[in-house]
């Protein structure tokens, strides 16, 4: 092996002729020793892996929790059709490894948020390159890199657009220095009772109806209790409660072994007829908006159904409009004409064709039956997956039926897949450009040529396809990168919160509050947890303890927890403090603004936290049986609605505090 490497040495010099000339032999030599972490082996990840391999980064660790899907193949060029369902990290490493035998690639099929990827692990790398597709993981890696002091290049693309951002603690802004836009949110009542846009109906079908019928059995009243507390219309809530009860009956019908034909009809009649009648009984609700029309199963099936949209309630004299749900091809409520009548040149894809109301009903029946059949065959719960045809059909049909009842434009299956699945169009070229730019910024960071760092945007302006901006200094109020980070190696089963906090503060003993993420563990007036072990507080490897000065005199200290070294004697001390101890900056007195994060709001000791915001992609199991990420806690209804960025608020006035809703 070593002799072949020696043989390769001659090749190496040739292979790297251009790189040597461009980067200089010294830096090339350094690159071959460089340890880089690539987080993500998707669209950007594949291109980036190619670039880092060809450029000659010596040690590449490639991490991704995902498996390969058919729709990846238009851009993730390291994958072939035969690789579908296999680990992205594994296959990418194997394919790209052949591009340059002098490079060592270590693939990991796992979630970057796992505890094993703690601060000590991050510190092993000279640089981290993000090729991620969700906010949650981006923020996590940003925080880890800020804590570990490892330079990071952050990136993202959407269609023709993309951007690259080099990040280094104390030198540049971090990813969280600038607040990220909060995901679109809808009030519960808009989704449940008064939709006015297609997306409302799609969210309803995907995140409410589908789980109600095919998801986990939850009584769903907690959400309604909450909404009631928030002061939402009590009459409306009561109606929704009746609705919830009726779901129980339908749920069991879907699961019973009897013949299937009636079940879909029964679901239909409950959801699109009874429930709507129920809503209509609250006349107050429809004073200022068009009251929905209950759908008639038989009439739709016979093609005789039409909907009268009530005249604008505010102008009583208006004449009623009749909506006939004319599909694009001009057949009123009829069955889809044979495809031969689509003679306008480009015939469009099956999914892009508008369905008549009749066909929508048929799709509802067939998809409901298919899903019910799966339940009867033993599937416990079924949740929405844009690549699961049964669920997509169901959501398409249910959303469009609801739209019909509410006089809302219907969407094609193609459009609904994109909206419900949060699909972001993607092409190889944008990813390739971005990946090239990532490497350039990475090289600046590795060279410590900080003056040359730039944020780069690939944009859609012909005059200026690439724009750059110089780096901004860190936001002095940033709750992530302005903190002072330190590391404690410990055995969480043996060290108490008090020991750790006092150890870290050392001689600078003062009144502090301690948090784990957004969870408060102690404050000067509440010391119940101080003598508990970290383990009993569910704090351990990979987590952070945040120590906030009560008088806001000192900067916040964040303690990253890692494990004791392997050679640590079992009877040795339960933790190893950093040396020197962290010395947070002294803050300006009279600072009126409290530290932006973590939230100082005290919640109940055993607080329940509902995570919101885009939820990281779940790990799919590699068909090879490779390790996959740990389970994600059983989602509750609210969370399901919030997945992929659809956040449900109880009312429009609800505030989102730093991505978290705390329930008292």
């Amino acid at each position, binding site marked *: 092996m070593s002799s072949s490497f020696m043989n390769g040495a001659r090749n190496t010099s040739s292979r790297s002729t251009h790189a040597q*000339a461009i980067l200089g032999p010294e*830096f090339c030599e350094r690159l071959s020793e460089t340890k880089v972490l690539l987080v993500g082996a998707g669209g950007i990840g594949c291109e980036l892996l190619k670039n880092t391999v060809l450029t000659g980064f010596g040690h590449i660790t490639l991490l991704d929790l995902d498996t390969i899907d058919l729709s990846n193949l238009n851009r993730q060029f390291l994958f072939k059709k035969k690789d579908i369902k296999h680990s992205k990290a594994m296959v990418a490493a194997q394919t790209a490894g052949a591009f340059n035998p002098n490079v060592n690639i270590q693939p990991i099929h796992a979630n970057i948020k796992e505890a094993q990827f703690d601060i000590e692990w991050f510190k092993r790398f000279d640089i981290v390159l993000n090729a991620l597709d969700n906010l949650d993981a981006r923020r996590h890696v940003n925080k880890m890199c800020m804590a570990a002091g490892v330079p990071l290049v952050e990136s993202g693309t959407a269609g023709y657009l993309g951007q690259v951002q080099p990040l280094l603690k104390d030198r540049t802004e971090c990813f969280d220095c600038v607040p990220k836009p909060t995901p679109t949110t809808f009030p519960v009542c808009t989704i449940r009772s008064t939709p006015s846009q297609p997306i409302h109906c799609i969210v309803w079908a995907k995140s409410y109806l589908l789980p109600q019928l095919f998801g986990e059995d939850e009584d769903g009243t907690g959400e309604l209790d909450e909404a009631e507390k928030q002061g939402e219309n009590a009459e409306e809530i009561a109606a929704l409660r009746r609705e919830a009860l009726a779901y129980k009956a339908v749920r069991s019908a879907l699961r019973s072994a009897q013949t299937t034909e009636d079940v879909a009809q029964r679901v239909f009649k409950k959801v699109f007829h009874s429930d709507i009648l129920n809503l209509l009984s609250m006349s107050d609700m429809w004073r200022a908006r068009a009251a929905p029309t209950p759908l008639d199963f038989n009439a739709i099936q016979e093609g005789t159904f039409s909907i009268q949209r009530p005249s604008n309630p505010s102008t009583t004299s208006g004449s009623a409009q009749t909506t006939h749900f004319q599909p694009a091809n001009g057949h009123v409520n009829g069955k889809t004409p044979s495809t031969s009548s689509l003679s306008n040149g480009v015939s469009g*894809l099956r999914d892009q064709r508008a369905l008549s109301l009749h066909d929508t009903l048929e799709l509802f029946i067939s998809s409901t039956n298919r899903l019910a059949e799966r339940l009867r065959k033993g599937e416990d719960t079924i949740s929405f997956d844009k690549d699961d045809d049964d669920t997509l059909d169901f959501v398409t049909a249910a959303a469009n039926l609801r739209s019909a009842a509410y006089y809302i434009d219907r969407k094609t299956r193609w459009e609904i897949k994109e909206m419900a699945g949060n699909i972001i169009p993607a*092409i*190889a070229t944008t990813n390739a450009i971005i990946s090239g*730019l990532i490497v350039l910024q990475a090289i600046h960071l590795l060279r410590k040529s900080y003056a040359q760092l730039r944020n780069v945007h690939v944009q859609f302006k*012909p005059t200026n396809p690439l724009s750059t901006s110089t780096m901004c200094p860190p936001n002095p109020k940033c709750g992530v990168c302005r903190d002072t980070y330190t590391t404690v190696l410990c055995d969480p089963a043996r060290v108490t919160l008090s020991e750790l906090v006092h150890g870290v503060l050392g001689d600078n003993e003062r009144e502090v509050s301690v948090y784990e993420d957004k969870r408060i563990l102690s404050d000067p007036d509440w010391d119940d947890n101080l003598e508990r072990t970290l383990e009993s507080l569910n704090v351990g490897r990979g987590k952070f303890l945040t120590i906030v000065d009560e008088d806001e005199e000192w900067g916040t200290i964040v303690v990253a927890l890692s494990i004791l070294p392997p050679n640590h004697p079992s009877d040795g001390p339960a933790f190893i403090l950093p040396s020197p101890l962290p010395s947070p900056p002294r803050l300006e007195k009279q600072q009126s603004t409290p530290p932006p994060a973590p939230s100082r709001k005290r919640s109940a000791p055993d607080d329940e936290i509902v995570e919101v915001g885009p939820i990281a992609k779940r790990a799919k199991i590699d068909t090879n049986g490779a390790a996959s990420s740990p389970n994600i806690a059983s989602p509750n209804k609210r969370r399901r609605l919030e997945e992929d960025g659809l956040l449900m608020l109880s009312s429009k006035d609800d505030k989102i505090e730093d991505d978290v809703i705390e329930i008292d």
Partner: protein
Amino acid sequence: MDTHYEGRSKGDPVQITEDEAAVYDRQIRLWGLEAQQRMCNATILVIRLRGTATEAIKNIVLAGIGKLVIYDSEEVKEEDLGAGFFFRDEDVGEKRVDAAKARIEALNPLVTVQALRHSTLLEQGSLEALIMSVDLVCIKINDICRQFGKSFYAGGTYIWLACSHDYISPKVTDQAHKEAPKNVKATASYSRLSTTLQLRWIGLTKRQTKELNPAVVHIILGKLPDDIDATSELGQVANSILASSDVNRQVLTSVPPDLIDAMSTSAVHEFSPTCADILKALATREAPIANFFTFDGNTGGGSVCRMSM
């Protein structure tokens, strides 16, 4: 097989199937089914197979063009391995196109790939035939632009003209040499952008046949920097194209520096004004999706170039 070009059948355009649409889903959502359809029916000729071409080929083959014709008469050199991920150590000494063909095909089994390797193909007669039979040509101007001046003329097809920076003789002073690394690095990323542009342009090819695009040609002519040897040659090419511009055709000019070849920083600098001007001209076009971008960085003063420093 490699001594002549197999003309493609000019039958009915191929309709994209549902299965193909599933593969191309994420991009059809970007540029639409019609554009994808046109791409699937396009034949593209790439002349020379080196760093930039490798990137461009990857991107257009993944995107799903109908047919790719690659011409290169040379053998794989060891230094080609630095940017050519279609090549392996054991390919050194093989013809470039032979080494790469199977790997290009593997990128997307829906695309037909034809490899051409005989240098006689670039002689006048066969070249004209070759160019006439394809929809789009991607070449490196420094190689063969002179010969191509007339070929364009005769071709009557759409030509994507790629000017490579190594065309200009480098005048590297010591000081400039110091700056070399970053400039050249910038070019690496640029080349990738240029491939994007190429891709988009392909999507719109057919529609564009109906409209003349003299503005672009004119710009190529008019705005080239005068003080470089390269300029006059480029101008010459552009001229001859213009002369024939009564035919429906398009000339797309881009300045995609070749990752491999762009060793000359001065070249990068010198050419950027060209690019900026072309971009300006393009902006005035009515273009649903920018038909193409061309750009270069590293003017030192230009907005684009700063990104690389």
